[in-house]
């Protein structure tokens, strides 16, 4: 298959997964804040920080309140990672790979894009937001199912799987960070947040549809260490970091010239597996650890890109073509 097509399919899956997971992030926060006491300093700014959008946010908004932050993450044009932008890019990649993906997949993505385009800006209020985020998450589910059930599991599909799982691993690590970062602030809090820790981690699990699966898996009551271990290391739950990495290995294993990519993923797997997250001294080192594995994810991406996508020289030619 063409390198250019491989790249577009990979990004199609990444952007779609990013839209879904950003929707999850906003969702978990909405619920979390309802459970926490007034005056706790767990604020919406954490979300901006976790998605790496501080600078762009400050260019547009002053107050890091609920309305601003959620409209920044849902509809903001200048935020490349906003749900709307992710869907625009998913659609653009789908439009340029229409000949590869099932026609129904294109219709689904196009339909979701059309919906988001007319509704994203109106969806920062609490109740409309729920409806919007749910639609994004469900459409992403639908796409995953459609591709899994109606697309040949060939190389094209392997790139979809790689894009989706790398993005998912990355976002799961960010969602873990939501929990960690919230607790990090507790020292500065006037109100003791510790009694609410349990409900915080429950929300983190719920945002990943993982609460039920976690309870089946861990008999003990919900606590931070077990939750983080579960979300990092449980191989059977499809949103954990290790599971995503395992899927990456499977997909890359089908592709030609995969040695370097497999080696890079294996190094990350080792790092995650050997981590004793619960033994990390404090929330600061925990936060640093999350940062580190996110760098590993970036390295995996670079390896995939340099092995299978158009080379920079060819890309340059590509850009000229597009400009023509």
């Amino acid at each position: 298959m063409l390198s250019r097509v491989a790249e577009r399919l990979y990004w199609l899956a990444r952007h779609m997964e990013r839209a879904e997971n950003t929707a999850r992030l906003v969702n978990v926060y909405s619920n979390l804040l309802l459970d926490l006491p007034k005056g706790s300093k767990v604020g919406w700014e954490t979300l901006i920080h976790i998605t790496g959008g501080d600078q762009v946010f400050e260019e547009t908004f002053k107050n890091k309140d609920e309305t601003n932050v959620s409209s920044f993450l849902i509809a903001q044009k200048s935020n490349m990672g906003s749900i709307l932008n992710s869907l625009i890019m998913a659609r653009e990649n789908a439009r340029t790979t229409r000949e590869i993906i099932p026609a129904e997949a294109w219709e689904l993505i196009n339909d979701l894009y059309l919906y988001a385009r007319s509704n994203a800006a109106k969806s920062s209020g609490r109740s409309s937001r729920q409806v919007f985020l749910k639609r994004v998450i469900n459409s992403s589910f639908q796409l995953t199912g459609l591709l899994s059930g109606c697309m040949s599991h060939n190389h094209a599909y392997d790139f979809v799987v790689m894009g989706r799982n790398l993005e998912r691993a990355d976002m799961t690590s960010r969602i873990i960070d939501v929990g960690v970062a919230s607790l990090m602030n507790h020292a500065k809090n006037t109100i003791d947040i510790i009694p609410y820790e349990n409900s915080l981690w429950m929300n983190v699990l719920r945002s990943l549809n993982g609460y039920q699966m976690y309870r089946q898996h861990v008999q003990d009551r919900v606590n931070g260490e077990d939750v983080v271990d579960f979300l990092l290391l449980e191989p059977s739950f499809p949103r954990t970091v290790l599971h995503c990495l395992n899927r990456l290995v499977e997909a890359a294993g089908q592709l030609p010239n995969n040695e370097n990519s497999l080696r890079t993923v294996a190094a990350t797997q080792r790092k995650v597996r050997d981590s004793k997250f619960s033994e990390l001294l404090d929330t600061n080192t925990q936060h640093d650890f999350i940062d580190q594995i996110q760098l590993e994810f970036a390295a995996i991406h670079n390896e995939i890109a340099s092995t299978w996508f158009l080379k920079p020289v060819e890309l340059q030619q590509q850009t000229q073509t597009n400009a023509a």
Partner: protein
Amino acid sequence: MGIDWNAYNSAPFYDELISTPGNARKHARAIVSYLHKLKSEEIGARKHAAEVAITTMGITFTVYSDAGNIDRDWPFDIIPRVIAAKEWAVAEQGLVQRLQALNMFIDDIYNDQKILKDKVVPKDLITKSKNFRKACVGMKPVGGIWAHICGTDLVRDGDGQFYVLEDNLRVPSGVSYMLENRAVTKRVFPELFEDLTILPISDYPTQLFDTLAAISPRPLDYPEVVVLTPGVYNSAYFEHAYLAQRMGAELVEGSDLVVEDDHVFMRTISGLSKVDVIYRRIDDLFLDPEVFFKDSALGVPGLMRAWLKGNVALANAPGAGVADDKVLYTYVPAIIKYYLDQEPIIENVPSFICSDEKQKQHVLANLDKLVVKPANESGGYGMLMGPQATKKQRNEFAELIKADPRNYIAQPLLSLSTAPVLVGDHAEPRHVDLRPFILQSGQGSYVTAGGLTRVALVKGSYIVNSSQGGGSKDTWIVSEDG
């Protein structure tokens, strides 16, 4: 009540569906009476359903504008245009005949030039043609076929007769819209497809693939066929992707291809992979910067070398456009006679050639009655619609003709036939044309059942191009009277 056909009057024009107010043509009776019986809310609902289908299916075309390129939904009218199968069978023969003769002509032009030596076509016309490619001289493509895919525009005049308006032998577009129009119509009027025998058109992509596979330099069952597109910003990108998808072929851009040792390869995830046939949707001059425009980034350096050595097939072959020049058009009846010794089955629109002094004088004296067309433009650009033009526009055109007579032909303004389009809750006549697609390889010919009917949605307008306010309709070839 649905559409009141008694209130529909297309006079003085020939209408495709209605002969006199209230009376349907025989082959159109089913759809006409159906639309009459349908409640008007129901018709509105069907129209809405069609619009939703077009948006969801993402059937778009791109409009170039100062404000950037805009992707617009494809303008579509739900009332199909119906043609009797008997009449179509004759048109089909005429289209095949025409393309056969044109292919023999192109092959002759780039090789022996017999037709020029016999003075049937003036030599001048070829040597001065913008579409004659010196680089192609001496080339012998597989089966002697240069134009594998042709879109021929047909119109009906007031007498109800089909005429050929022009041939498109370079990169004709529109076939995907023909196919999508049918898909939308099936969603909108499923019940009609149960009761009527409407000739199917869905095998076009298979026929196209077979045509392309037949010209592969390597004798393989499944040669590597690719569709070469200028990219996502091209107005016909939708169609390029659509055809690649339906054929199961790779859709490539210039940067995906590379020529090594005079063979063409594409860059894949496992390295370079050989390409046999390129269905190119890029104009000749952008194909290969080594031979044509040097700064073209759309093409592939070395592509012409590979083609001339016979290591890759190009469809249509470079240089095929020499036969779709609008001046050469006037010689097509003579070309058919010369190569096939047959009378043309479908006639040309009578035309005046400005390079002929006498005819030029006639054109200049009658600019207010004629349509003047430049030899090489497409999409309805650069034309003068004499009867509708201002005096100033006519004077400007007279100067253009005098400066470069070779570049212009003129035709009387045809009374293009009309077909009903839905306007609010009633039907109004609008002018239509028809673009069938003809495929030809050494192994045979194929004509689409019908084609793309384009309609000028603006009242009284003759311009059917989508870039200028045109829309389209599904076209039915109905095999039984009904």
